């Protein structure tokens, strides 16, 4: 896939380290994400992929190193602050609001976009009502886009796994993020569901121009989808480049196939 023309860096991770007790999840990892690209972070189990995502969106704070997002470097950012800054994400094991319908889940993604005061909202009057209608319209667009019209009123706990993943993507899209983080978007899916999800990811990138960083286990999926790939192994970055470059890299082949030490 052709890389986007822009080479402007949206997010820059510099020498980030993170340890849990004696376990070093990340060891001085640097990587950047350019505006408009689909960036993959891959690696075997326990490579530090999810830790990297959690550091980027503020669930974890790095022990060392810095993260620069949209030109601003920050030390400790809390998750809701990063959401406010324009970072949305999905989770490896689907974290939806289980008691709510698909529609309400996606509406929850609009939380930050709502401006009207509490009192107006309580009265359902004037500008607050117009605002609610406007948000509903945007949410319906996303529902159409993800082809989940039929299940919008269903409590998400009742949906099959593949559809839950799709609703979760919808909730992240509703935030209209500058950077979308996807944690194993295809995990546990069958081939057909994987193809659907790949199509949505490419469409999001094309239509809305959203920058996407995704973590995947499955090399084949990632190679078709992404512009650039970074490979982590045991908390270290062992390769970074276009899918073709990474595929040929000896260190990557060793990490995935195992090598006699």
């Amino acid at each position, binding site marked *: 896939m052709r890389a986007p023309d822009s080479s402007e860096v949206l997010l820059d991770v510099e020498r980030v380290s993170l340890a849990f007790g004696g376990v070093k999840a990340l060891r001085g990892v640097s990587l950047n994400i350019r505006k408009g690209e689909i960036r993959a972070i891959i690696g075997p189990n326990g490579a530090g992929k999810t830790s990297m995502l959690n550091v980027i969106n503020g669930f974890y704070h790095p022990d060392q190193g810095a993260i620069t997002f949209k030109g601003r470097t920050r030390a400790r950012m809390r998750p*809701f602050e990063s*959401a406010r800054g324009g970072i949305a994400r999905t989770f490896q094991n689907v974290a939806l609001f289980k008691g709510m319908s698909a529609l309400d889940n996606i509406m929850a993604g609009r939380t930050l976009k709502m401006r009207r005061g509490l009192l107006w909202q309580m009265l359902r009057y004037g500008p607050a009502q117009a605002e609610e209608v406007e948000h509903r319209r945007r949410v319906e667009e996303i529902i159409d886009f993800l082809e989940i019209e039929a299940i919008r009123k269903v409590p998400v706990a009742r949906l099959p796994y593949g559809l839950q993943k799709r609703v979760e993507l919808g909730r992240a899209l509703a935030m209209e993020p500058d950077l979308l983080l996807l944690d194993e978007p295809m995990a546990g899916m069958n081939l057909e569901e994987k193809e659907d999800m790949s199509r949505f990811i490419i469409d999001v990138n094309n239509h809305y121009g959203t920058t996407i960083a995704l973590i995947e286990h499955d090399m084949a999926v990632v190679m078709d989808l992404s512009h650039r790939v970074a490979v982590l192994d045991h908390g270290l970055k062992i390769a970074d480049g276009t899918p073709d470059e990474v595929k040929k890299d000896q260190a990557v082949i060793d990490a995935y196939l195992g090598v006699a030490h």
Partner: protein
Amino acid sequence: MIALGQFLEVLIGGLMSGVLYSLVALGFVLIFKASGVFNFAQGAMVLLAGLALVRALDLLMANGFPFWAAIVLGIGFGAAIMATTAWLIERFVIGPLVNQDALTLFMSTIGATFIIEGAAEMIFGSDVYPLRLFPTDAWFVLEGLFPGGILVNKLDVWGGVIAGTLVAGLAIFFQWTKIGRALRAVADDHLAAQSVGIPISRIWFVVWLVAGLVALVAAIVWGTKLGVQFSITFLALKALPVLIIGGLTSIPGAIAGGLIVGAGEKIAEVFLGPSIGGGIEYWFAYVLALAVLLVRPQGLFGERIIERI
């Protein structure tokens, strides 16, 4: 006709004390709905709110403030104390336990109960303090229909009006506002809520604050009826069967449950008491709750529990 008149009188009295159970149950439901925590400290919060209010009132009146000014300032002071409590609980008890399971959070509220009870009595004293905000005398209504009329306590009417207003306000708050939606989101999944930009600590503060204000309202009504005293905390135990009957997650359920318990226990006491011995009032609610658990474990108004296997 005498029997019917007496029945109505008992029924009305029962419903009105049911409103009071509802007020306490409401505090539990609010916190459970919004954070998935069963807040054992709700009874202690009612005591704290009541003591803060009544002691402030006494002090203000003793210093020559007019009655209405003392009430406004006293309620303001009570609200401020509940806000402080909410902040402290979020900061030091619940806040550090984000993403822990429900049982851990429940245990932490048991700890908070003892601290709140101790602090409340240490700061505000441990006597019985009478609270007089409403008229407590009786009305006799429908004298034309029933000989002697039906006795209705004015306080009970006030209690009903206040509870009704409170419930309507809360229902609107939860259903129609952004914060309401955020509260429900936090209850379902802490991590996901944070990822869509909900500041979880602020939301928890709001929940505990609202529960604190509900406790203050409950304290006003209960305190006027019985005086503000330590035994108010035991009323929290009466709220348990109310919650089981109404459903832990339902605001209307808390109200209906309270009314059922209140009316049921009074009617049982008066009409069954003579034949099977008195004291029914004390256990009736629990037996009723057991019966509901057998038939409808999620309560009359609770959400059906759906579990994927």
